[in-house]
């Protein structure tokens, strides 16, 4: 088990209350807090100021790599062992488009998932306080803090409408 991170865990039942808390925390200059929710939510994303995920670069680069791999594989292998079929050219584009397309989709999809895993690992989740209700019907905000800052944060989330506030570790 990872060492627990000290901080404040606020549990919300209402979406607008959670968004208010996020906005207040951001207004106080807090950025390193974690928001838990059972499903993605546009209001939360807006309050958090979420920008586009770079996962699209993985898709783009994976797809292009796959397509080029399709070109390279078919042309090189055809020319490496020339096989004359029905008097058609040895290496030719139309039938090879199938391979370019399939490999674009295959490598594009696999690299998208790789991107998802790698990017999700960029922000730690181990050791952060969590409650099983977050995958059910509650929204959680965990702010790493201790001492006086902790009580200030507690006040902010309570004012916003948290139904429960816990001090972690």
């Amino acid at each position, binding site marked *: 088990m990872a060492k627990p991170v000290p901080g404040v865990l606020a549990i919300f039942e209402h*979406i607008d209350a959670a968004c208010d808390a996020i906005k207040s925390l951001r207004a106080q200059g807090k950025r390193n807090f974690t928001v838990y929710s059972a499903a993605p*939510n546009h209001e939360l994303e807006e309050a958090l100021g979420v920008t586009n995920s770079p996962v699209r670069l993985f898709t783009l680069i994976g797809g292009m790599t796959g397509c080029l791999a399709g070109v390279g594989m078919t042309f090189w292998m055809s020319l490496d062992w020339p096989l004359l079929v029905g008097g058609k050219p040895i290496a030719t584009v139309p039938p090879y488009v199938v391979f370019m397309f399939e490999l674009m989709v295959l490598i594009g999809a696999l690299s998208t998932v790789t991107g998802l895993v790698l990017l999700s690992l960029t922000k730690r989740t181990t050791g952060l306080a969590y409650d099983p209700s977050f995958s059910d019907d509650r929204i959680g905000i965990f702010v790493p803090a201790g001492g006086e800052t902790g009580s200030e944060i507690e006040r902010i989330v309570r004012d916003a409408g948290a139904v429960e506030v816990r001090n972690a570790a």
Partner: protein
Amino acid sequence: MAVIAHDPQHPNQTHAEVTRDVVNTLGTADRGYFIALGVAVLCFLVGIGTFTMLLKDGLGLAGYSPPVMWAVYITTFVFWIGIGHAGTLISAILFLFRSPWRTAVYRATEAMTVFAVMTAGLFPIIHIGRQWFFYWLLPYPNARFLWPNFKSPLIWDVFAISTYLTVSTTFLCVGLVPDIAAARDKMRGWRHKVYSFFSLGWKGTDNQWRHYTRAYLYLAALATPLVLSVHSVVSWDFAMSIIPGWHGTIFAPYFVAGAIYSGVGMVLTILIPLRKALKIEHMITDYHFDNLAKLTLLTGSILFYAYAMEYFIAWYSGNPFEQETFWRRAFGPMWWAGWTMIICNAFVSQLFWFRKIRTNLTALFVISIFVNIGMWFERYVIIVSSLSNDYDPYAWGQMTPTWADWGILLGSFGWFSMWFLLFARTFPVVAIQELKEMIPMPRLRKGGH
């Protein structure tokens, strides 16, 4: 018959109820489930037994008889691949089109896709004769650096099917992760440990959702053209040849429509008993079945048109070989198979013009069985009847399927059902997080966002 809910597009439940009802479908099963699983495993064992005999004695056991050297195995291969298409259409294409009715049904259909493609993928291997050399299909550096013929549609198929299996499995698994995490948080004891492992540390943090939603969108965007391409490639296995009845330029869209039609048929066959067995009738409602039936009507009508066009093209071409093939489809030795296909696909689907039939589950279930039968026969007719009489009447001949054909066909249904049944009790068959995305969360203050 239940009455369609007031606002069917939005689930009439709270977030907590969605989690509870879906998680309740997991775990301890009743006797009926084990009987169904037992029957599935038994059918699968029949398939294994038949395959063992094929390995031992060779393909001579199946009903191949010149000139019909593609028969029941290839028919069943195309049948299962087709089944897979409805799943990806519903999960990926309707996701991109933001169609709200897909949410409650897409997980079950996506799982169906994966297991159907897993089943289909076995058939070319069974059919190739020396099954232990199946890897010769792949481009790998062998002793003499011989490469596959990339101009052959059969090699296109190898790439299309393996890509489809990989991408649809990936799409299913990515969708499952947050739902497994939701199940994990409701479980105790060893189940909690198992679901914790498969949830891959998912906590639903803002960072995870930020990347997840985008990744899911791009996977759907990649899967969308893929689903259309896969059955087009399968159709080119036939259309690229010069056999009368196969050499048609309409084959790609004709096969894609047929695939979706057969897939939606199978979705109906599976979902109607499944929602009752898992007690999720309030989640998968008449509204969803109505839409599935409309999809069946649309694709069934495209098939109707395609069948008519095939006959029209045969007549208009002035080609006697093409004309003879289509004449024999309707009035030759296989007339019964030809008419089964036309009645089950073109005509039966037209019943869905009536709303009463679209929302009557008994009627839907019966029609879905006709769809399954009709679509199997469609492939049987296209493959066997076209091969049995091509250019030279001297070489014409019929084939009769043998026990080895039926054994493998039965085994494929067992293999598919076994995986689906195991899935349905182990993983959430309704997408928890996507349903929750559609249900507004409670607010402290009045007024919307």
